[in-house]
């Protein structure tokens, strides 16, 4: 009941809406940058056997570094605010995207590539017309995982001055066990979960629209 009162309070609503918008920004921007970088790194790792293991081990090492530490290390370099969080979250989002780009490209049937060669397609054309479209379902799954990861980790940015729904949770933490703290904890957490669900539905829709009918399961 107290939670419903909390949600119906206009000032809470304003707060939660603006934090949700910040949280979307804090997720969408890093994922978008990571998609561009990850696509490039993934294609590179697929093409060059020498670079494959260095690229994959560096991006997986990045994900091993605890988020609070990576957010904090960015502060002396970039300053306080959304900046350090965006850079750190971009680095985290790379691993699922790079890994799935590589395995997606490797999963493309060799016979398909050979017939594209036989049709006289150049290497660049093969990549864009044949390999990437065939690898796309696996790549999209990687982008989806990266997004869910980012939505959750972005909450921690609030501890070191970042924006987003983590602020509401952090407000609640500082007031435990006073009355009203539970509402803030629940509000922040549930809105983050809700955001994750909405992103998931968005990816379902993107998959429907962008996966060629011929390779749909």
């Amino acid at each position, binding site marked *: 009941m107290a939670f419903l009162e909390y949600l119906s309070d206009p000032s809470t609503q304003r707060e939660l809406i603006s934090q949700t918008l910040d949280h979307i920004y804090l997720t969408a921007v890093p994922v978008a940058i990571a998609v561009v970088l990850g696509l490039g790194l993934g294609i590179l790792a697929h093409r060059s056997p020498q670079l494959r293991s260095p690229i994959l081990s560096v991006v997986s090492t990045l994900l091993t570094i*605890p988020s609070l530490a990576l957010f*904090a290390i960015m502060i002396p370099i970039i300053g306080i605010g959304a900046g350090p969080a965006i850079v750190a979250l971009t680095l985290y989002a790379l691993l699922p995207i790079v890994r799935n780009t590589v395995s997606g490209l490797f999963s493309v049937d060799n016979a398909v590539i050979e017939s594209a060669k036989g049709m006289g397609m150049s290497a660049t054309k093969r990549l864009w017309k044949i390999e990437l479209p065939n690898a796309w379902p696996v790549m999209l799954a990687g982008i989806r995982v990266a997004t869910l990861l980012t939505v*959750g980790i972005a909450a921690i940015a609030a501890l070191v001055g970042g924006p987003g729904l983590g602020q509401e949770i952090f407000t609640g*933490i500082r007031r435990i*066990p006073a009355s009203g703290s539970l509402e803030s904890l629940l509000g*922040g957490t549930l809105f983050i*979960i809700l955001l994750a669900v909405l992103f998931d539905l968005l990816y379902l829709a993107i998959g429907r629209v962008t996966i060629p009918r011929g390779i749909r399961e």
Partner: protein
Amino acid sequence: MSSTLTPPDAQEVARRTQARDEDAALGRRARRARIVHYLGMPLFLLAVLLALYLWVQGQELDSIEARTITLGTLLSQTRQHITLTLYSTVVVLLLAVPLGIFATRPGTRRFAPAIIGLGNAGQAIPSLGLLALLYYLFRTQPALPSTGTFPVVVGLVAYSFLPILRNTMVGLEQVDRFVLEAGKGMGMSQRRVLRRIELPLAVPVILAGVRTALVLNVGTAALAFLFGGGGLGQTIFSGFQLRRNVVLVTGAVLVAVLALLVDYLAGLIEEKLTPKGL
């Protein structure tokens, strides 16, 4: 007579010498790769720690900074951090691995997709929110202990439980059905199939779970200071609140080094314990 034999002999010797040199070069390269594989990460982490030490030593520390980053404080926070990581990892493995085995038996297998789906959905729960909600529960229920490592360990276990359960189940499902059928065909009982075939084949999966749990927990334990559990996250946070970058960076580098070291050691254990045939 000997003169006619000399030229091919010389060639043969030259060829053999070259082959031996190539073998040696190959051996050297393999040895170098092995050295990089085993010593690369520890040497890198040692270099990072040394650089951090020299950098902090070179700074003119004010009284607040000098009070926050003492060796005693950092060591006790490191000890707390490691304790939290180990406790929560042991507990989560004891809970999630047996449950994962149980949930993939023929009788219960129909629930497996639902549990794996739940595991995927669980990724959406933010660690900060989950830890905070559990801590709130501990603080407001008089019957539960509200201080010390216990509430934090419960939070860490709750956060890493679903990923470990999910990984164990996916790993066990991957065990080749034909191998199981072969076992059954040899007249093995179901329990024997589990013990003699499935579990040995699932060892890599379980070891990967140990590594995942350790890495997840060492990262989440950086939040323990918020809930009275201490750990190195405290130094990061103090540095941020006091606007002292020396403190902030010291805490952040130590947390990162600890996590990378834990991952490296877990990787070594994984490598050593995985059966050779796999």
